[in-house]
């Protein structure tokens, strides 16, 4: 089983969020980056489990500049065999998906795995776009995947419940919580990662199809009013005059 796992860097969850260039770019200054947890904890670890059970190879791919290398190296330390970075600063999800699909076509992969979304933009787009570009089936928000030979039985999170589907390789799957359990790289893995191949390739030239007009922060949450349960009249007044919901 040869698996291509798509990984991206995201700001650490404690990062202070701000924007530059007329609010069209995220201000990366002083921000710590981590591997997107859905890519790391679920997609990558499930891919490693498949390799451990069936043999094969796990390849990481990331579309980004050299500052992605630390995240890629972590994936190699956790156990991926090799990695590819497409050296460009992508402008939208379509550009990312196009580059990954272009690379995937050049190799012999049975499966492409992504996280269900990146935790900073929550787009959930790249996996579906790769599947479309590859003309492969797409399974989104997978919380369980059992593989027998080339047939996978997959539980998917759907609104209000779960759906179980069967699919044959090759396919694209996006990983949700439950698909695997986080693995912490050990020191030996970290040292082995230093010598694993990380290939840097130029982009294929696929154009972006959208551009960012602007970012804005959500409104700060207003403070909570606590109303004495004896004072229903005050509650009604606040709902009418301040919340304006009555």
């Amino acid at each position, binding site marked *: 089983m040869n698996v291509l796992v798509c990984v991206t860097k995201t700001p650490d969850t404690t990062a202070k969020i701000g924007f530059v260039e007329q609010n069209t770019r995220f201000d990366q200054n002083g921000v710590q980056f981590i591997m997107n947890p859905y890519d790391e904890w679920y997609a990558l670890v499930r891919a490693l489990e498949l390799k451990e059970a069936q043999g094969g190879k796990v390849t990481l791919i990331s579309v980004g500049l050299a500052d992605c290398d*630390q995240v890629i*190296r972590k994936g190699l*330390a956790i156990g991926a065999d090799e990695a590819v970075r497409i050296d460009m600063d992508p402008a939208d999800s379509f550009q990312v998906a196009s580059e990954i699909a272009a690379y995937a076509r050049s190799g012999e992969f049975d499966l492409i795995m992504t996280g269900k979304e990146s935790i900073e933009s929550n787009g959930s787009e790249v996996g579906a776009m790769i599947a479309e570009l590859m003309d492969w089936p797409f399974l989104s928000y997978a919380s369980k995947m059992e593989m027998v030979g080339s047939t996978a039985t997959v539980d998917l999170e759907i609104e209000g419940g779960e759906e179980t589907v069967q699919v044959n390789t090759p396919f694209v799957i996006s990983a949700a919580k439950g698909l695997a359990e986080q693995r*912490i790289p050990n*020191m*030996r893995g970290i*040292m082995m*990662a*230093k010598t694993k191949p990380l290939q840097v390739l130029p982009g294929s030239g696929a154009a972006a199809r959208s551009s960012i007009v602007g970012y804005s922060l959500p409104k700060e949450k207003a403070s909570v009013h606590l109303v004495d349960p004896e004072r229903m009249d005050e509650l009604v007044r606040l709902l009418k005059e301040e919340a304006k919901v009555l």
Partner: protein
Amino acid sequence: MDTTSTTQSRKSSAREDRYQGHDYYQLDELLQEDHLLARDAVRTWVKQEVSPIIEDYANRAECPYHLFKGLAEIGAFGPSLPAEYGGGGMDEIAYGVIMQELERGDSGIRSMASVQGSLVMYPIYKFGSEEQRRKYLPKLGSGEFIGCFGLTEPDHGSNPAGMVTNIKDDGDHVILNGAKMWITNSPVADVAVVWAKDEEGIVRGVIVEKGMPGFTAPEIHGKWSLRASITGELVFEDVRVPKTNILPNVKGMKGPLSCLSKARYGIAWGVIGAALDCYDSALRYSLEREQFGRPIAGFQLTQKKLAEMITEITKAQLLTWRLGTLANAGKATPAQISMAKRNNVNMALEIAREARQIHGGMGITNEYPVMRHMMNLETVLTYEGTHDIHLLITGMDVTGINAFS
């Protein structure tokens, strides 16, 4: 008082570990990718495995033995030893960073790792025969064996060269007699690296195994510090040890002292972790805690404490980074290591005390880590060379005159 229910209620109220590192001078830029990955891995492990249980174990003065296996799995035992002997093949800065993250969790957990790596695996690697290396190091690295290090005696602490523990020739064995005191991990250890004088009065290293007749390791109780770490004695009454268990490649005090240099180096890094945890907790608490209608972080006396803390932490970070760079080049002197150990432990202890004040009454409870760190650091100030002895080592180094013997 019903202590069981108290323990349970405290345990259930354990706060989420919201620790974040602090890097005021962008020193991360001086670290390599593998250092950052090692730090991230150990920090994640500590948040998952140590933080949720440490207050409870420290409260009950019990050692979380199950963490030995976990420490081995992440590679915290002997990370700077070669991989073929069970180590990690990393450099000295990586080792320091690992110790820092472990001690951020608890000095006792860091002690478990530094004893195993610096005081047991290191001397077997450095001074042992090839057979001894093959026999012990992989099992120590994987946590299958727990090790301890016997140098300090009841009557010989700062003056280890005065030791009375001794070995006498008995054909292809030696007969070991004596006692060692304040030995981390001793009651649970499978192997002990013991330093003893031969019949000519020369200090030799001897590997003693659990179960050898005449060897016991009673536990020391009643510690108000390193409560989650197990400490004991080593007692030898006519213990017959095969001569093949003597470390062949070292004679004299330079054997144990070179191990202590390794361990002290790890402590110099480690205590920065304890200091950072205290600072991190104090900073967050002072921003959340309001008095007189505003966060206490807004008051000048709180800011003085916080500003001095991060200043001292930054200085200690720079000191250890430079010491690590020297150690990687094989140029760090024992006296330089003494200076860093002494300075940084004292720095951490003072920060723990100041952080305790910022937390007010909450600072004395196990809702916050600061008083546990403070109590732990009282031990760290004394073990592996006391605060005063390290000062005199610096004094001797700069004057050329020995002031302590």
